[in-house]
């Protein structure tokens, strides 16, 4: 028996050669290991985006091999795998006719050059593509092994053939022995001839041959998917794709024996693959973080960090640093020094410090960084970890060789300034945004595959729209049926099969929201950089998991709307109330008597607009959880999450709280777990606790627990979490825990996979919860103004925020040309305690408001900030006296003034909506006489004398509709109030009265649909929020009712609901039995009151002359109109409905 031939595949493309490769990098690696190849080179088209995944898996296989463990290769299967050598490279595809080149860096310098080469191409091209030229390779091609992979069709084309020889000569002269000529079997019937021709050519130019199958997929049975991918790429149905498709399935990863057989005449081509690989000594291990040195002159980075930390500690703990805190600081410093992360901390410190002190931007670290006292001392985070028993080991630990990850939230509308600062300070050579990999989800995969099979547009969108929101679940047969496809149909089955296969394939790279990689070395020598949608901004080719795998540090510069709101609120407080507050002032201490009313308010779920706890689910939890101290808020934030809900942890926790209140002893599963679970009353709620349970109760080693945590984060993608399931449950059972409890703990960990909150993160968020609640409780005027000025953000639309402020006694004044600013501002006003709604009666003594709100122009749809600020406000002087005056002096366009009239902003000069509009329409910029200096006088009277026209007076209903149309809300009345008489006749109960009704009673309510919510954790149940003039009401539509009333639930803007009232701890829901679309009733609002004779003045307006003929005409009109009134109401309804809130859908 002869020894098995050695073969290394150097031409593998993965699905990171977007829409070319049809296998994941991981699949390629596993297959290469199964085939026991001597090596696998990953060479994607002008990209190294997929190499880290291959590298990480190869490393894991090697680790497992050493430990004699199996490697999981799919959701169900795990096997023993031999280690496989994987080399990162790239397939260089040129735009100038140069044949493709497979390029592999030999060492770290070569990698740097490859990255520079690809960056050059990326930056030259449009976003998302890469334009390379021969000259680029000539410039950057040193320290690399290269293989030319010409198109075999060249054999037929004499000029091209000559050109190929030219390339070979040039490359040979430039790169000497590093250049190879690749031979690839195509099975087009002429392989022998092509091999012979290429081999002659190579020999003539002293270039070694090298064999590769240039696989596009790991196994031959991927050919159909590969064809689908081609069809998607070429935007053509498969049946018409013709020769764009491969004629056969030969582009799979072939084993050494098969390759040796194919190349039996050219055995040196096979042997050369081994020699090629032997020259490659580069590994991604060689990339390590090297942060820019941020040390001050004369100090080492450690000394700088040490000094800044101590100075910060003195500031944070004015009463002196407690010994235990001092000890913590020393411990953290020691660890950071050992891990050499000093510069990383200093960099983050620098950015945060600059944002906070030089730019005046409110910011706060979130996530695990909040565990670190040093981060607290450096003002990166605002929550004192010592106060909140947070553990530093969650952040950095010796047992884990994983870089720390600091996420910082900034004000959402000013984050851009921080990003600009980072670019300015470090330059694009050293700072870049992390990539995010956009993958095919159910929706997009279904759509694209349906298109590839030539299904019509409406079937494509039917398949696409079947899924609510993002989902990675497979397109199910039920989905197909709903889209009108028959399952017995072959095409349908193919679509479902290949859509499922395409799931998770990357589509393109996009920039991560704010993850920055900052390096001391040139960034583009570590990883290629590329353009983003924004000019002057660059991102790297790797996503955050890739960065973790190659151990590069990143800083997440994130945007948070609530920070904008809080900063604006703090500014208003300082300006109008002379109250100086900061985030840290509001947290980190016992809130004492000042906190009492705040917590009272939270317990009543009076939290509209408050950070995090304003959603329907959160609000219904509050009266049951009854938070009384800061830590309760931390729990509140963490508990209403899909993780704990799916893990079924909420009710046990609530039960234990009730037990504690009644002083019943809480029992813990064991003493060891009491320490872990004490603060959450025996119910694991945080990610850390899950890990600690794994260690203490399931016997995991810390490193294993950490892998478990990482598996949680990526479990949907990698499916590795099940590896741990048996070990975890068995581990706990062997330590005498009940299997049920063990399974419960594990289920929760699974739930965390998608939405887990670490405790430190919950604590950071809880601080914002308290801060926003505090402002809302004491200064509802400031709170509402800040929220309005920070839109869009949060769960509620301005209409609800304003309504809530008014219910708390805040006066809100309409937008006006002479009184408003761009932002909503505060105007002196007496606070009317009686105006506080009785629901919030207890706030009467708490609220310290002394101002009214004046709407800003930002509330008006379609106005530009700069124009309004620079023209209208800047030139206002003592105020505008007429529409013409405003037009002449402010320089606003007529359309802009018309918009102001639409918004009813001329009241201060005595003009109603229609009068103002009438005047606006008369403005004519084209008429030269208007602007002659002669007439440009102070009185500015209208030059043209025209007969007075009496316009029909707007009914109140119309006013409200117009308010909604242009302001999205009305201060005049609620639309439903006009329908109240009608509704009362129908037995509809105003929402405010629901609180006084007994649970279980059948009631009928009606209102505008504000929100429809279908949480993933609620198994198809829909929550609807309705609003009438007295308040909001929540309705629950069970699956069965939803099936029956789907069209109404999803489409109606005004509904009438009959159902059973459920009241629990002050939380009221209506369980929908019957629901009726009342949208048509909105037409009544606009239904010309005058035609019903309701408005006398309007009738007057219609009779400008006493002419008898005229009168007869009018009578005739009236007669006809009355007969048409019903039809008119109907046609109005659809128009009016269009103005009303559509009802926001949340998932």
């Amino acid at each position: 028996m002869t020894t098995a031939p050695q073969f290394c595949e150097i031409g593998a493309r993965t699905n990171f050669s977007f829409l070319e490769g049809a296998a994941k990098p991981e699949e390629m690696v596993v297959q290469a290991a199964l085939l026991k190849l001597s090596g696998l080179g990953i060479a994607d088209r002008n990209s190294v985006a997929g190499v880290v995944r291959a590298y990480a898996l190869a490393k894991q296989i090697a680790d497992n091999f050493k430990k004699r463990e199996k490697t999981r290769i799919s959701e169900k299967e795990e096997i023993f795998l031999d280690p496989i050598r994987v080399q990162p490279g790239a397939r260089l595809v040129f735009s100038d006719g140069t044949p493709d080149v497979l390029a592999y860096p030999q060492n770290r310098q070569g990698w740097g050059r490859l990255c520079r080469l690809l960056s050059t191409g990326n930056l030259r091209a449009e976003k998302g593509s890469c334009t390379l030229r021969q000259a680029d390779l000539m410039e950057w091609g040193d320290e690399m092994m290269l293989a030319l992979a010409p198109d075999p069709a060249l054999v037929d084309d004499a000029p091209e053939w000559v050109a190929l020889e030219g390339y070979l000569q040039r490359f040979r002269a430039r790169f000497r022995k590093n250049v190879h000529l690749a031979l690839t079997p195509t099975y087009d019937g002429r392989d022998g001839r092509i091999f012979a021709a290429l081999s002659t050519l190579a020999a003539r130019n002293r270039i070694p041959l090298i064999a590769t199958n240039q696989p596009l997929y790991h196994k031959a049975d991927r050919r159909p998917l590969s064809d689908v991918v081609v069809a998607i790429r070429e935007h053509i149905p498969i049946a018409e794709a013709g020769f764009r498709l491969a004629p056969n399935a030969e582009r799979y990863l072939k084993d050494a024996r098969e390759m040796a057989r194919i190349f039996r005449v050219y055995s040196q081509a096979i042997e050369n693959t081994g020699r090629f690989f032997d020259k490659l000594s580069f590994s991604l291990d060689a990339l390590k973080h090297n942060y820019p040195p941020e040390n001050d002159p004369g100090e080492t980075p450690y000394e700088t960090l040490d000094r800044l930390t101590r100075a910060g500690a003195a500031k944070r703990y004015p009463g002196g640093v407690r010994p235990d805190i001092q000890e913590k600081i020393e411990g953290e410093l020691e660890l950071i020094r050992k891990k050499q992360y000093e510069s990383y901390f200093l960099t983050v410190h620098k950015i945060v410090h600059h944002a906070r002190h030089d730019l005046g931007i409110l910011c706060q670290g979130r996530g695990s960084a909040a565990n670190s006292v040093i981060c607290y001392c450096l003002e990166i985070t605002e929550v004192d970890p010592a106060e909140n028993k947070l553990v530093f080991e969650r952040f950095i630990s010796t047992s884990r060789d994983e870089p720390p990850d600091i996420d910082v939230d900034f004000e959402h509308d000013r984050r851009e300034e921080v990003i600009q600062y980072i670019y300015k300070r470090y330059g694009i050579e050293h700072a870049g945004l992390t990539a995010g990999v956009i993958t095919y989800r159910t929706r997009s995969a279904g759509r694209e595959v349906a298109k590839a099979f030539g299904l019509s547009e409406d079937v494509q969108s039917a398949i696409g729209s079947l899924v609510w929101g993002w989902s990675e679940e497979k397109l199910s047969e039920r989905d197909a049926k709903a889209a009108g496809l028959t399952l017995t149909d072959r095409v349908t089955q193919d679509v479902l099969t290949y859509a499922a296969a395409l799931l998770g394939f990357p589509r393109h790279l996009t920039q991560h929201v704010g993850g920055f990689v900052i390096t001391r070395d040139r960034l583009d020598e570590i990883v290629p950089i590329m353009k983003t949608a924004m000019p002057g901004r660059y991102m790297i080719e790797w996503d955050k998991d890739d960065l973790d795998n190659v151990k590069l540090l990143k800083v997440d510069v994130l945007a948070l709307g609530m920070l904008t709101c809080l900063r604006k609120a703090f500014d208003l407080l300082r300006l109008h109330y002379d109250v100086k507050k900061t985030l840290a002032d509001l947290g980190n201490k016992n809130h004492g008597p000042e906190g009492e009313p705040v917590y009272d308010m939270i317990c009543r779920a009076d939290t509209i607009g408050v950070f995090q706890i304003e959603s329907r689910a959160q609000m219904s939890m509050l009266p049951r959880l009854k938070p009384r101290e800061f830590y309760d808020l931390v729990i509140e934030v963490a508990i209403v999450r899909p993780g704990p809900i799916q893990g079924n942890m909420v009710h046990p926790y609530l039960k234990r709280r009730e037990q504690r209140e009644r002083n019943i002893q809480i029992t813990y599963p064991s003493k060891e777990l009491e320490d872990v679970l004490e603060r959450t009353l025996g119910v694991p709620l945080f990610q850390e606790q899950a890990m600690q349970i794994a260690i203490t109760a399931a016997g995991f080693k810390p490193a294993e627990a950490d892998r478990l945590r990482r598996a949680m984060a990526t479990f949907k993608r990698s499916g590795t979490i099940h590896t741990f399931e048996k070990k975890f449950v068995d581990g706990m059972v062997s330590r005498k825990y009940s299997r049920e409890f063990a399974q419960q703990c594990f289920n929760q960990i699974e739930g965390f996979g998608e939405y887990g909150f670490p405790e430190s993160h919950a604590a950071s968020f809880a601080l914002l919860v308290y801060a926003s609640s505090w402002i809302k409780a004491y200064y509802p005027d400031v709170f509402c103004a800040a929220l309005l000025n920070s839109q869009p953000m949060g769960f509620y639309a301005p209409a609800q925020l304003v309504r809530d402020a008014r219910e708390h006694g805040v006066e809100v004044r309409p937008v006006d040309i002479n009184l408003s600013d761009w932002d909503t501002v505060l105007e002196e006003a007496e606070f009317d305690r009686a105006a506080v709604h009785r629901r919030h009666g207890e706030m009467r003594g708490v609220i310290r408001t002394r101002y009214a709100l004046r709407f800003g122009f930002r509330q008006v749809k379609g106005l530009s900030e700069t124009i309004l600020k620079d023209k209208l406000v800047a030139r206002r002087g003592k105020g505008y006296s007429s529409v013409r005056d405003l037009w002449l002096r402010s320089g606003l366009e007529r359309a802009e003034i018309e918009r102001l009239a639409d918004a009813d902003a001329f009241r201060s000069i005595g003009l109603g909506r229609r009068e103002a509009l009438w005047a606006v329409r008369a403005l004519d910029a084209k008429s030269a006489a208007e602007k002659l200096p002669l007439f440009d006088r102070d009185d500015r009277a209208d030059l043209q004398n025209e007969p007075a026209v009496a316009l029909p007076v707007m009914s109140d209903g119309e006013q409200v509709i117009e308010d909604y149309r242009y302001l999205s809300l009305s201060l005049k009345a609620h639309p439903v109030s006009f329908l109240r008489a009608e509704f009362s006749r129908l037995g509809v109960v105003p929402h405010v009265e629901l609180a006084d009704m007994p649970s279980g009673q059948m009631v009928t309510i009606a209102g505008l649909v504000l929100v429809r919510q279908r949480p993933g954790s609620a198994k198809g149940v829909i929550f609807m929020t309705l609003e009438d003039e007295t308040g909001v009401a929540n309705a629950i539509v069970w699956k069965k009712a939803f099936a029956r009333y789907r069209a109404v639930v999803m489409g109606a803007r005004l509904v009438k609901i009959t159902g059973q009232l459920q009241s629990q701890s002050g939380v009221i829901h209506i369980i929908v039995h019957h629901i009726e679309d009342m949208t048509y009733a909105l037409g009544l609002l606009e239904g010309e009151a005058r035609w019903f004779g309701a408005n006398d003045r309007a009738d007057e307006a219609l009779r400008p002359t006493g002419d008898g003929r005229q009168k007869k005409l009018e009578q005739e009109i009236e007669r006809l109109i009355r007969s048409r009134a019903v039809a008119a109401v109907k046609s109005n309804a659809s128009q009016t409905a269009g103005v009303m809130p559509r009802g926001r859908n949340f998932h």
Partner: protein
Amino acid sequence: MRLTALSEGAEALGLKPGQGVAEARAMCPGLEVLEEDAAADRHFLEAVADWCDRYTPLVALDGTDGLFLDITGCAHLFGGEEALLKDILARLRRMGMDACGAVASSPGLASAVCRFGSGGIVTDADIAGVLAPLPVASLRLEEETVAALSKLGLKRVGDIMTAARAPLARRFGAFLLLRLDQALCLDEEPISPRRPVASLSAERRLAEPVVAEEDILALAGQIAVSLKPSMEARGVGGRAFELVLFRVDGAVFRICAGASRPLRDPQRIARLFSQRLQAVHDDLDTGYGFEILRLNVLHHEAFEGTQASFGGDRQSEASLAAFIDSVSARLGADCLQAFRFQESHVPERASATVFAADGLAAKLKASGPETPRSERPLRLFTVPERVEVLLAEIPEGPPQSFRWRRQQHRVSRSEGPERIAMEWWIDGLETPTRDYFRIEDEAGRRFWIYRQGLYDETPSPLWFVHGVFA
């Protein structure tokens, strides 16, 4: 994507035109959506317009869903305006159309009353009364103007009629008042008919519909007789004729025929159509027969034609396109077929027959590879023929000899394999892959032979000869 039109059922569910398809589907997951086909809609409207030719030659399209008929001087032929309108609407309804109509002294008024009012006949005395209660949108104004007017509370035409004109013109421009005056019949507005009015025309209305071709031709001849005097009076002859056939159910067929020289003779004119009728025979669905036949002279010339000279050779270099055109015009587009190359790796699917005219057009557009890279045999068998192969190189070599049509061939040279996997989206995943070889036997004959199935797919694969090279 948005909904543009709804069935009655969909309306009842509360769906609205203009609604997003995604939203509509969220409401009714079973919703059946057809893509709007504006061309087909227009085609349909034009067909209705053609049909309306029976009332007046002056038919104009109004937007995407309306028709203007200028019935000046025609109404009496149908028993007056009311009877005419009733006749049209009744017939349209019988054909399954939900139509409404109005007769008025101006297009603007008719359109307003028809689209926004109750339709019917508007007498000149009623104009203001009928118009006043209609919404301003009925005046065919720009959307922006309608919106601006309604914001001011001027929602009905009456509101504008009674308002002072100068301020209105200042604010909304002269167009508003023009439209108002047009609707009030104070201003003229011509309609633009979609078809040129034929220079000469004659028709025959039949009590009994005709079906048979010879009857149609005979009638055409009779109508041509009635045209002759007018042509003679003008001293012209027809070059282009059009025979318009109104089918009982409303379909209208137009058959054109050209003459190489001006014609007057009724028999010759009728004969022109006999050829055309034969050519279009399959397309001319006579259904329940035709009730009106009309013969139009579309183009005429002075009767004395010039004679062509012997020297003229303008026609001699007729291109293929001209040939296809002329034959197709004579015999119909489906009479000439051509082969077209089709991109498919599977040899028997690499060609298709198409109409010659389409094939020519497609050829001009075609891009990308025209042929597979590897050579194909001159003659490809429709059905591959089995051959017996005793010995072949494993796993993917050519046979050493084979037996085909009872004759043994020894292979002297070969090239291959060219591996062609079947088209899985048609053939399924199970159909075996083929390995083709070009083979020359000792006698120098060349064959295209394939093995069906790879050795690891099938234990004993079959061999076929699929074609022969020259």
